[in-house]
């Protein structure tokens, strides 16, 4: 029960810090789950990240997997509810106000001030994850390949994930 309480407290706070989406809080999730609480090893965190990215649905659902590792089904549901509820409540209220204030200049200032912060934090998330999973040159090449495919081609990057799984099964990563 104590663990579930920690899960809820932690993810509910992250919910309100996740400006710019789930990837913003990846470094913080990693810090909490691996370094502070010791819920997961580096390897487990990287694995759960891979499942959440590869599976359909919002990538934020890595919290469901972390919750499952910590406390089974109850942990999974508690973590999911905790990451969603605070932000959803806020969005529900704000969505109604947003429409009313759409032409105000301060709204534009808020957006412009927020954007660079969001970009910096997302880049930090990319760095933390890449540093965790890229333990070999092949792994690094896979990361760069997926990035290149999603930046410069119209191919579904899922194919690179499949290729990664095949190379991994062959023991090359």
């Amino acid at each position, binding site marked *: 029960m104590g663990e579930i309480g920690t899960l809820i407290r932690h993810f509910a706070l992250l919910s309100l810090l996740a400006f710019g989406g789930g990837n913003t809080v990846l470094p913080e999730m990693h810090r909490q789950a691996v370094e502070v609480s010791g819920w997961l090893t580096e390897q487990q965190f990287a694995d759960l990240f891979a499942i959440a990215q590869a599976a359909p*649905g919002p990538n934020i659902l890595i919290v469901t997997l972390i919750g499952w590792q910590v406390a089974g*089904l109850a942990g999974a549901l508690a973590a999911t509810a905790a990451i969603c509820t*605070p932000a959803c409540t806020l*969005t529900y209220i704000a969505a109604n106000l947003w429409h009313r204030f759409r032409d105000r200049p301060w709204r534009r200032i808020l957006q*412009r001030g927020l954007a*660079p912060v969001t970009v910096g934090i997302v880049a930090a998330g990319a760095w933390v994850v890449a540093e965790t999973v890229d333990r070999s040159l092949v792994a690094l090449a896979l990361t760069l390949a997926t990035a290149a495919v999603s930046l410069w081609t119209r191919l579904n*990057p899922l194919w690179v994930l499949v290729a990664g799984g095949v190379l991994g099964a062959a023991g090359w990563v």
Partner: protein
Amino acid sequence: MSHPPEAAALSRPVPSRAQLFLAFLGIAMSGFGGVLPWARRMLVERRGWLSGAEFTDVLGLCQFLPGPNIVNVSIAVGSRFHGLGGALAALSGLLGGPVALMCVAGALYARFGGHGAVRQIFAGVAAAAAGLIVAMAVKMAVPLVRERPLEAVPIALAGFVLVGLLRWPLVWVLPPLLAAGMAVAWWRRG
């Protein structure tokens, strides 16, 4: 942001709660490696519930609010059509399928995750999946660096260094960084 005249808004179909649920379920289950592109496809191109400009406007709001963007989009779109009931219908459509799937995946991983072969496969998939975030960071950074380098790059860089390299807790970094971002945006307001 421009909005279409009322007449155009009225001529667009209004989804029921059940249709909202099913549409967001469809969005979630097709969203491999990212859901937002599928949301636009479904809501604007296939169903015609929102115009392109309305979708951009809703997404703008959702990016500015904390929380996963697509989750916020489901709340904003659902509540636009049917208030609280619509928001809950869209949200449960979006999360229901994937959460069930994650629970199965989590159980399988907890049981078989330690096996060598499974471990190796994940190492490969994880390395490839990391590229998705790298690409997203690049996509987000490019327009910002192009449009207002002097204003945005120092703040973005500070966030990257403090959180990514130095691993400072986000709760310490975000408030001062946001304050700095807002101050610069205020100072440079056109």
